[in-house]
């Protein structure tokens, strides 16, 4: 069953076209990676999937219903189902808020839980991302980049969404931290059935998390398929270039 879908979407900033006829379909519990170079339209596609912007043609659907960005009740339901994690764990957490407030924020703003109920959910979310219990009482600056990304993931998953949308979630992290955050995302998916859309210029990160991959070039889908097939038998030169650019350890 399709949970989140972009159907033949176009998007332009002013007269500058960014996306042309892009389709992406995410079934319950599935994972799709979106790869391409800077300017390929990856982040714009995510903005559409998150309901942060409306396509100029085509539609974004959640549970089969087109998103209505002005319908606040519908968007609240949408946000309870689709949550996001962004690239920079340093700028995406409010430095003046304690971690328990940061993680509780979506519960409150979406009217899902408050008080003791919210506090219990926050504790569970922090535990599920592998942070110590006392993390709740501390501030973002007290955490490393990898830990901050865990906090961002706790904030996204505290509402028990069905879809996690991740924009370059590990690109700003050290390689070691990167694999730990990837392991965490895979573990959360295995235990909760969370579906994932992950945008990255790094095919290695996508290979480690996503069953299917969509390759964007200049705002168009140039190739799409099972990640294993894309990696072993890319049909496009562009995809081959993305693969060969990944730095590898000597054997």
């Amino acid at each position: 069953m399709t949970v989140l879908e972009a159907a033949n979407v176009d998007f332009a900033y002013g007269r500058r076209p960014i996306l042309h006829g892009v389709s992406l379909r995410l079934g319950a519990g599935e994972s799709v990676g979106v790869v391409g170079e800077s300017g390929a339209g990856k982040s714009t596609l995510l903005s559409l999937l998150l309901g942060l912007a409306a396509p100029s043609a085509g539609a974004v659907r959640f549970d089969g219903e087109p998103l209505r960005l002005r319908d606040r009740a519908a968007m609240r339901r949408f946000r309870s189902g689709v949550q996001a994690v962004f690239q920079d764990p340093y700028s995406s957490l409010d430095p003046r808020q304690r971690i328990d407030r940061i993680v509780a924020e979506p519960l409150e703003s979406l009217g899902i839980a408050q008080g003791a109920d919210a506090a219990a959910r926050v504790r569970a979310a922090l535990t599920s991302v592998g942070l110590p219990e006392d993390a709740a009482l501390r501030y973002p600056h007290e955490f490393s980049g990898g830990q901050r990304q865990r906090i961002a993931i706790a904030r996204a998953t505290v509402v028990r969404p069905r879809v996690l949308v991740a924009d370059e979630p590990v690109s700003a992290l050290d390689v070691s931290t990167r694999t730990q955050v990837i392991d965490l995302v895979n573990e959360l998916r295995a235990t909760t059935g969370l579906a994932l859309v992950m945008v990255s210029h790094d095919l290695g990160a996508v290979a480690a998390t996503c069953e299917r991959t969509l390759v964007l070039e200049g705002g168009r889908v140039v190739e799409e398929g099972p990640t294993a097939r894309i990696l072993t038998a890319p049909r496009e030169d562009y995809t081959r270039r993305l693969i060969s650019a990944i730095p590898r350890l000597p054997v």
Partner: protein
Amino acid sequence: MSVQVGERESAGAPLLSVDGLTVSAGDGAEAAELVRGISFSIAAGERVGLIGESGSGKSLTALAIAGLLPAGLTAGGSALLGGVETIGASEAELRPLRGPAIGFVFQEPLTALDPLMRVGKQIAEPLRRHRRLRGAELDRAVAESLAEVRLEDPRLARAYPHELSGGQRQRIAIAIALAARPKLLVADEPTTALDVTVQAEVLGLLDRLVAERGMGLLFISHDLAVVAQQTSRVLVLRGGEAVERGTVADLVRAPQHPYTAQLVAHARALDAALDGAADGGSAAEDDRGRDAGGDA
């Protein structure tokens, strides 16, 4: 003075010789040592990597060598750069070394470039200062510098940094660093802010320029795979100390320190994600289209 010393080096003395380098914050009982007892040397044509996570002291090491530590941090020990001791040296002693003896390329070219100056002028500045070029000769050298970093379109010289892509900006930063013909280039996470494809291009460019000019290279990164591509000897830094050193080949094949082993394992895990998919595909060629997605 640095020129004479530089000429002596070609006889085989190292371009850089670091011995027991320390960097500390604060003083007296309050002092915290951020870098402790780092030693290594780089001869002409040699490539050394510093690898570690953020906070391991790799950038502080490089900054200390050129006397560029931020206020409040103090360097100790010894660093001979082109035969000149830079630890405790005055600005007047250090200034002639920056450029001809040591050049820097940093992670974020946007902060290294002056946002209000056309990039051609930024390249011209060190050419004028260190190679005393003027007029038509200077213009020609700027065009050559741009061509060297594969920015052939001469109109780019008139662009401001914000008008360029991240990869173009890093090429400009490289052109500026190389304009003074440094004997040693320090590249501190030079491609961390770039896309993989642009990273590959910029690394290829650095590799070629360092080889062509016979420069020494100090390459700093958290990414073992990138360091392994660019250098032959590596120091693994953790918490301000070198926990392991050796050739890239040895280190990757048989890491001695548990932390190095962990770095190698993490890099291998990402490779394996790519290979795992690859192995599955080639082992079951016929099924590839049908069920390769199962456990990618």
